[in-house]
């Protein structure tokens, strides 16, 4: 019978460095999914009618919701940061003018584009929304 050697692994490996950094990055997925659930609840309440929607908006304006969205914002920014930090490893190697583009340049460009995209969306919202 095959009895492969399995190196013992600490049950809490994910809570300790260096894996903690990966765990924190993956945890942003929980916040992003939770934000989707908050928005989904809003759309459902909207379909149910005015009183249901007003109740949802009452939650959105509550202290609990503001604290929750502050966490979502931190998670979103951390997600964007790590998303572009690993981008040079997740995308095909970029060749410009016969030379490989430096990983740091790809990361910096990604973060710059993301900052600009969010800033533009905020400005459009300020300009267009009532």
């Amino acid at each position, binding site marked *: 019978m095959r009895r492969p050697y399995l190196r013992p692994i600490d049950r809490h490996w*994910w809570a300790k460095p260096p894996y903690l950094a990966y*765990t924190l990055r*993956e*945890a*942003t*997925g*929980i*916040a*992003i*999914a*939770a*934000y*989707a*659930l*908050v*928005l*989904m609840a*809003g*759309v*459902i309440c*909207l*379909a149910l009618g*005015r009183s249901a*929607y*007003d109740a949802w*908006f009452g939650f*959105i*304006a509550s202290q609990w*919701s*503001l604290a*929750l*969205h*502050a966490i*979502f*914002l931190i998670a*979103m*920014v951390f*997600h*964007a940061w790590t*998303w*572009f930090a690993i981008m040079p490893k997740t995308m095909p190697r970029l060749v410009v003018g016969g030379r490989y583009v430096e990983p740091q340049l790809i990361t910096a460009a*990604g973060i710059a*584009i*993301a900052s600009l*995209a*969010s*800033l533009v*969306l*905020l400005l459009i*919202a*300020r300009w267009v*929304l*009532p």
Partner: protein
Amino acid sequence: MKRSVAPVFWLMFGAGGMVAALFGPALVIITGLAVPTGLGLGTTTMDYAHAIVFARHPLGKLVLLVVISLFAWHGAERIYLTLKDMHLGPKPALAWLSYGSAGAVTFVTAAALLAVGL
């Protein structure tokens, strides 16, 4: 050869991750911080009258469905892989739990957007 469905989940994960990286911070600031507190945006921006007009417009529907479902699929992929790496259960069960939830979010959101009408 049996084809894997993993690339489909990866595509949703990647698309959701990119949308979240580009617009996530601004979306959270608008819907969760600026509008409810009235800082920078009016508190009536997301009241029933404005929200229903937005959700009844085809482009509004598209934005809501894309943002909500892609964020759900993105989160599901990360949650599934983390739970799998933590050995918290059999792989098919974890996959059904996470991808199933994202599928349910997509379906329910689409149904609610249809119910809102045009």
